[in-house]
């Protein structure tokens, strides 16, 4: 059968660009094109300007080999009221014209007391994967980020080149259009279709962003990759592979304009996904992606499951030899692996089911036990310990494995019964949904390890730049936050962003209560301290100050708590925990003291259970180290208030008879969510705690001063 080639095949990117230039020259009589070797029959190093010199000979000029000269003339022509496109043969050579871009063209716009149009577009082929070597393969975009009046575009297979050039020239200020060489021979995408699986749409005003997604999943991204035009194919290849391997929906967003970057139109998509990577071919350090990540962290930090993942080429020159060039440049597999690590996919997940799985194979695999979601802070959990032997018979609800979250250990129970076959190994980091073990109906032959154990990966803390060879230790001068601190960071960042806090301080005299505590300690033979008195006093204030123990459901509704659950700060070896003292109003001081001691010992051994760290509806920050006047705490979202207690200090006072007396005092602070609590309420609340300390008899309830 004869294959009929029709004209419906999409044009190549180079053809689209060449056509765009022809149309522009048809329309714009004041348009000039300058560059090296542009004239026919050569038509430029990449033939993008083919046919132009024949049709518009007086406005298309081949120039001497001097980028400084070409860009100087181009800038001058633009300043004099013309529109100018300059082709720089390789983006690498733009370095020779950098002064003209930085100090002349971009400055001329605003150096005359009024805005002067400088419609200059510098086109340059960039990127590697062609074996052109260190000085003909670079992606210099990052060197042009952040220059006032200079706009950066990148050619993409989604965006029509004529529209891009039109907008760039109409800005009236200089622009650079980066054109990845590998794109030239690729086809344009059109009609909303990428391939059999992926579709795309354009979102946002102007040239907008191309949004590529698996058909029917426009609103359901698991991960979003921000990829400039040159990286589109590599990003899509990674998305396809991740879809096949893990069934995940990875979307690709491509802006026509790299800088300044208008992220507004894509924020809803990024928020919903919560996981974002920015990819680029430029080498590591001072990258465009780092700038994008900074903007996104500022805008949607609290919606992200983890930091934006910036992926770039290595910190290296670009070798000429193909196998070495591939090592250095960011490829589809690097994007795939980076996303997989960041998302925790593939860590213990089953491989996609074979299409013709036999019943026997299913029986051998058994019922999976998977990682449950244990909190909102962590993307992955660490397998801490197996609690039962491999091959053992498991009854329902038997706890089989312990997982470490960033703050606590949780024991995971089996839902069903069966012979245990472990899949995950101690020390592995697993994502929610990953397989921990299988429960088999029959004992596995020989009780051996799972012979079809899926491939698992250990998740490093912060995958970033493509690095050849094994992942190295963090470089000197870098500190990677541990899991506990990452959990703290997430909470305080959210609080800092979302809670408008007020802060009030009062001073309380504590001689009486300290003396009483000393007596009680002597009587009972066990130490009692100020912390337990404060915790109890705070808890007992709940009936009179119910809003202080609530949390905001929406802008105007506070969910009230049924009883006080007081979190207390415990930091004994550099890791901050806020375990919760439950219902302290019903408990004796000795009982509370035991609980606090228990917390301190657990903090030292990192032995908290998850339930001990959750459910607090107010918190107390304890800072007994000598000399601490006061600490201003950050309210722990979704709570509304946090009390802080400084160290006991001595101060001299003149009493009623005029005599100098020494008093011991502490400062009590209250940080409060000002949307719910006002300053006067805060003072009343603190006065209540102060009274409890200064007049311990006011601490209500018989159990208060009993010691067991």
């Amino acid at each position, binding site marked *: 059968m004869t294959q009929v080639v029709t004209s419906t095949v999409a044009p190549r990117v180079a053809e689209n660009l060449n056509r765009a230039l022809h149309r522009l020259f048809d329309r714009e009589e004041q348009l000039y094109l300058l560059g090296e070797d542009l004239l026919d029959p050569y038509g430029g190093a990449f033939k993008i300007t083919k046919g132009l010199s024949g049709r518009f000979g007086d406005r298309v000029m081949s120039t001497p080999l001097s980028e400084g000269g070409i860009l100087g003339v181009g800038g001058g022509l633009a300043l004099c009221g013309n529109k100018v496109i300059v082709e720089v043969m390789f983006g690498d050579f733009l370095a020779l014209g950098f002064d003209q871009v930085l100090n002349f063209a971009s400055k001329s716009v605003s150096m005359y007391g009024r805005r002067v149009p400088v419609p200059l577009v510098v086109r340059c082929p960039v990127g590697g994967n062609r074996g052109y070597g260190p000085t003909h393969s670079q992606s210099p975009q990052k060197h042009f980020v952040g220059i006032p009046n200079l706009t950066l575009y990148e050619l993409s297979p989604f965006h029509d080149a004529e529209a891009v050039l039109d907008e760039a020239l109409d800005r009236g200020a200089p622009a650079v259009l980066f054109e990845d060489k590998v794109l030239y021979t690729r086809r344009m995408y059109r009609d909303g279709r990428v391939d059999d699986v992926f579709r795309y749409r354009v979102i946002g005003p102007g040239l907008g962003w191309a949004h590529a997604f698996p058909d029917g999943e426009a609103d359901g991204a698991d991960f979003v990759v921000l990829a400039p035009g040159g990286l589109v194919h590599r990003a899509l290849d990674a998305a396809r592979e991740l879809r096949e391997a893990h069934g995940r929906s990875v979307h690709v967003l491509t802006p026509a304009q790299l800088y300044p970057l208008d992220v507004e139109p894509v924020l809803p998509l990024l928020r919903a996904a919560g996981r974002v990577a920015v990819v680029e071919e430029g080498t590591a350090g001072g990258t465009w992606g780092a700038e994008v990540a900074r903007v996104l962290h500022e805008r949607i930090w609290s919606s992200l499951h983890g930091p934006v993942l910036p992926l770039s080429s290595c910190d290296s020159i670009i070798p000429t030899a193909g196998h070495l060039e591939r090592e250095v440049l960011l490829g589809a597999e690097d994007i795939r692996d980076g996303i997989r690590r960041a998302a925790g996919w593939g860590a213990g997940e089953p491989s996609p089911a074979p299409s013709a799985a036999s019943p026997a194979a299913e029986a051998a695999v058994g019922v999976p036990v998977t990682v449950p979601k244990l909190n909102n802070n962590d993307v992955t959990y660490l397998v801490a310990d197996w609690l039962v032997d491999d091959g053992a018979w498991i009854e329902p609800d038997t706890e089989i494995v312990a997982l470490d979250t960033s703050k606590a250990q949780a024991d995971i129970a089996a839902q069903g019964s069966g012979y245990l076959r472990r899949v995950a190994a101690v020390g592995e980091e697993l994502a929610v949904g990953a397989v921990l073990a299988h429960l088999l109906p029959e004992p596995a032959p020989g009780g051996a390890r799972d012979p079809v154990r899926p491939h698992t990966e250990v998740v490093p803390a912060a995958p970033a730049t493509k690095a050849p060879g094994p992942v190295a230790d963090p470089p000197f001068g870098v500190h990677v936050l541990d899991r506990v601190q990452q959990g703290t960071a997430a909470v305080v960042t959210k609080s800092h962003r979302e809670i408008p806090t007020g802060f009030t301080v009062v001073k309380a005299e504590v001689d009486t209560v300290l003396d009483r505590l000393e007596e009680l300690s002597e009587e009972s*033979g*066990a130490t*009692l301290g100020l912390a337990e008195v404060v915790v109890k006093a705070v808890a007992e204030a709940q009936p009179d100050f119910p809003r202080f123990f609530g949390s905001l459901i929406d802008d105007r509704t506070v969910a009230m708590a049924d009883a006080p659950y007081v979190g207390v700060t415990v930091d*004994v070896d550099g890791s901050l925990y806020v375990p919760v003292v439950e219902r302290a109003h019903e408990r004796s001081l000795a009982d509370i003291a035991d609980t606090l001691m228990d917390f*301190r010992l657990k903090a030292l051994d990192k032995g908290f259970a998850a339930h001990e760290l959750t459910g607090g509806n107010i918190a107390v920050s304890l800072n007994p180290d000598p000399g601490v006047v006061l600490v201003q705490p950050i309210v722990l979202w979704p709570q509304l208030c946090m009390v802080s207690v400084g160290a006991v200090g001595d101060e001299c006072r003149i009493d009623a008879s005029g005599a100098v007396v020494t008093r011991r005092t502490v400062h009590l602070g209250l940080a409060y969510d000002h949307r719910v609590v006002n300053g006067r309420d805060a003072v009343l609340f603190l006065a209540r705690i102060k009274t409890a300390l200064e007049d311990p008899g006011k601490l209500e309830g018989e159990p208060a001063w009993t010691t067991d």
Partner: protein
Amino acid sequence: MRALEELVADVLGVPVAEVDDETGPATTGGWTSLRHVQIISALGREYGLRITPRQARSCRSVGDLRGLLAAEGVSA
């Protein structure tokens, strides 16, 4: 196995000669509530004991710690 005095001296960062049965939070400024927790934790690890929070609160000197060890069948 370290002697009790040695263990306490290590945590407090003082010469072992300065530690005797009277040493405790009341006599030694460096014996803060944080150091107390570290001493208890080190004691548990060194001698393989599981010390309850109440026992931890009841130890107010090295002599008390020695009593605790004796009650658990450890001589140190």
